């Protein structure tokens, strides 16, 4: 299916969840609670169609055709 990620078109397998997408993007494994399996903080947040998806819901949140995802992290500033 096709989604939009951070403003760009992206193709992702049918049945993908938010967890699938975060893992694809960051290369980090995630457990069911949304924490990285390498034991370090993952430090990203996800908004789906302008609503924040709590990390505890990443695994249970299936993506749908046309979804708009924003994945953000901490950068230098202020």
């Amino acid at each position, binding site marked *: 299916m096709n989604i939009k990620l*951070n403003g760009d078109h992206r193709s992702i397998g049918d049945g993908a969840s938010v967890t699938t997408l975060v893992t694809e993007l960051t290369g980090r494994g995630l457990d069911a609670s949304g924490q990285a399996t390498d034991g370090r903080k993952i*430090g*990203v947040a996800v908004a789906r169609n302008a609503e924040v998806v709590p990390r505890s819901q990443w695994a249970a949140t299936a993506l749908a055709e046309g979804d708009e995802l924003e994945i*953000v992290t*901490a950068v230098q500033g*202020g």
Partner: protein
Amino acid sequence: MTTTSIQTQNDPLVIDGVGFGSRLIMGTGGAPSLDGLGAALIASGTELTTVAMRRYSPAETGSLFQLLLDNGIRVLPNTAGCFTAKDAVLTAELAREALETNWVKLEVIADEHTLLPDAVELVDATEQLVNRGFKVFAYTNDDPVLALRLENLGATAVMPLGAPIGTGLGILNPHNIELIVSRASVPVVLDAGIGTASDAALAMELGCDAVLLATAVTRAQNPVQMGEAFKHAVVAGRLAKQAGRIPRREHALASSAMEGRAEFL
């Protein structure tokens, strides 16, 4: 005992029940590299540092969040770049999820030219964020009325600007900063406009609880040395404020006694 340890041991900055030995809050904007930034942060002695929230890019090398975690520096996400309360609230929600903190430095900017806070949107966003359980560090104009409003809405700290962001003009209205401090019962953090160490010392002498700055260090010719300068400036200003300065006088006042002088023919 050094001055730094005096401050650390007896005079912590307490915000929302959390104590900090350093009264210098650093920003991370403007640094050309993550390595250089890390060295400047360590030299400054900061224990609380702001970050912005932006789109994740796999190409990015190194993680700022990890750098702060590794150095035991607490992270304070900001809402830089937000022009409306709506954007600021969503950004704060993302920051809370990403960084697992309910502290947020709330910036709602009116326009890109001045980067001054938009008071109306700021008040609206403060109210919404407090209701959602955030601890709001409100970046505000140097307006004593607005600062008190923000406190009454539940802001955890008020952060009046010394001068517009990035200008390095220092504290343009010391009288207003003093007035804000005199009426506040939450911590007052002088934020923005700091150019050099004496500006930070002045902020502390005016009674501010802490100073927040970024580009004064990150864009200095020697950021590590400037970071260290600010560490001492904030301590010096705090000590001077507590020591109680002499009153200003119209005319000279000799410090040497007149009696007992030798007489010359």
